[in-house]
């Protein structure tokens, strides 16, 4: 497959390249990661709240990049456990205000260089997930969460899972595509509780 690609790039066998799906995924090595990191440091610059510290990879990104998002089990489990330990679970009920949660689920703001620093971020939930049957404009990159609480109930374990998954999805599946919304500082503890309410409250449109 890799060889076919090289031929394509060289333009040697145009007919073989035209239209046919080509496996383009590179296998990134340690050297590649160092090269890309240096390129990002050279070719990107801080703007607004988006500082250059953001190009520094952490253990999760390193392992997922090295293994094309399918990391070896043991190494993955160790980092997942670290990520889980770093989640700050609040005491008591994790159910916030479901109406505020709905607004947070709708909002795609936060952490972009165009967003005012200090302005409340959103969860961008609808970008990728279906939640309420009333909202027809939903993305499909993540699974549908329609009836999330109806299926699972709203008990303490479910609350904890929902809170943790929003706070840091990588604690549950290391190379999950979902942003670590609490860990990255996109959402506050209260905002995540509000989302948990939106997901679990029996009166939430998600569960109607």
């Amino acid at each position, binding site marked *: 497959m890799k060889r076919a690609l090289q031929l394509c790039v060289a333009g040697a066998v145009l007919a073989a390249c035209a239209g046919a799906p080509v496996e*383009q995924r*590179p296998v990134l090595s340690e050297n*590649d990661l160092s*090269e890309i990191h240096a390129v990002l440091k050279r070719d990107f*610059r801080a*703007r607004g709240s988006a*500082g250059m510290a*953001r190009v520094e990879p952490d253990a999760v990104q390193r392992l997922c990049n090295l293994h094309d998002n399918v990391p070896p089990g043991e190494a993955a489990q160790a980092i997942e456990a670290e990520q889980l330990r770093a989640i700050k679970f609040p005491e008591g009920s994790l159910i916030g205000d479901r109406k505020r949660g709905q607004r947070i689920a709708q909002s795609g703001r936060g952490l972009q*260089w165009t967003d005012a620093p200090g302005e409340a971020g959103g969860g961008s939930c609808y970008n990728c997930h279906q939640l309420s049957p009333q909202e027809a404009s939903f993305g499909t990159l993540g699974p549908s969460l329609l009836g999330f609480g109806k299926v699972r109930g709203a008990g303490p374990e479910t609350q904890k899972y929902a809170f943790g998954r929003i706070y840091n999805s990588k604690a549950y599946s290391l190379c999950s595509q979902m942003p670590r919304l609490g860990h990255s500082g996109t959402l506050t503890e209260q905002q995540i509780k509000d989302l948990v309410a939106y997901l679990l409250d029996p009166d939430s449109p998600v569960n109607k």
Partner: protein
Amino acid sequence: MHRLRHAAAWLAAALAAAAAPALAQDLKKEIQKYQQMIAEGSPVELFELEGEALWRRRQGPANVSLESCDLGQGPGVLKGAYAHLPRYFADADRVMDLEARLLHCMMTLQGRSRDEVTKRLFGNEDRLSEMEYLSAYIAARSQGVAMSPGTSHPKERASYELGRKLYFYRAGPWDFSCTSCHGEEGKRIRMQDLPVLSSPLAARPVMATWPAYRVSNSQFKTMQWRINDCYRQMRMPEPTYASDATIALTMFLTVTGKGEPYRGPGTKR
């Protein structure tokens, strides 16, 4: 409405340029053209005209136009130039896309400073940037020409390789790579379908229609803007305009989509 505003701005510029009485005939012709364009409803053609005027306008300390700028097909040759970019340029010893090459010509031929030529790279609905007007004009001169970026020089191959790696590399506070959105067939964000741009089938029609007019915000957008705005949404710091990283991504996408006859500037949602 926006289209009319663009047309009006363009007409005002034409009026100003034709202030001398000897140009009355030209002005009449321009007004006819303007009316025709409004009738046909193509703002891109207006942008192309403004781009052509900018291409021919003497500017900078050297007081020369861009007409001797070599976009890869020889000085001043526009036909097919866009379809053959990005490519390696020996005089700069660097792979360049259209926008990088135009910056190069503005600085080396016209003697303008980097600060001046990069001051307003992205325009708005009221007025495009110089780069956007020029891109509209130059890209349109490649209509019907198969997209065929440079793939033979070692620096062209290195650019492709870097772009390919960047496409799949996850980074930033949201752990995103290009594949976070453009990695799986049949997915969408909200209602927006997402092409898997590492696949030739998806890349071909996309790369053959940039730069493009965006109907949703009445703006004209270039490939440099597209990559810039993706990284903004990825929550990354800002990629430097016309940097090697941005050109490498464009190189990867254009090579992936090569062979498609160019049919832009396009119209996007």
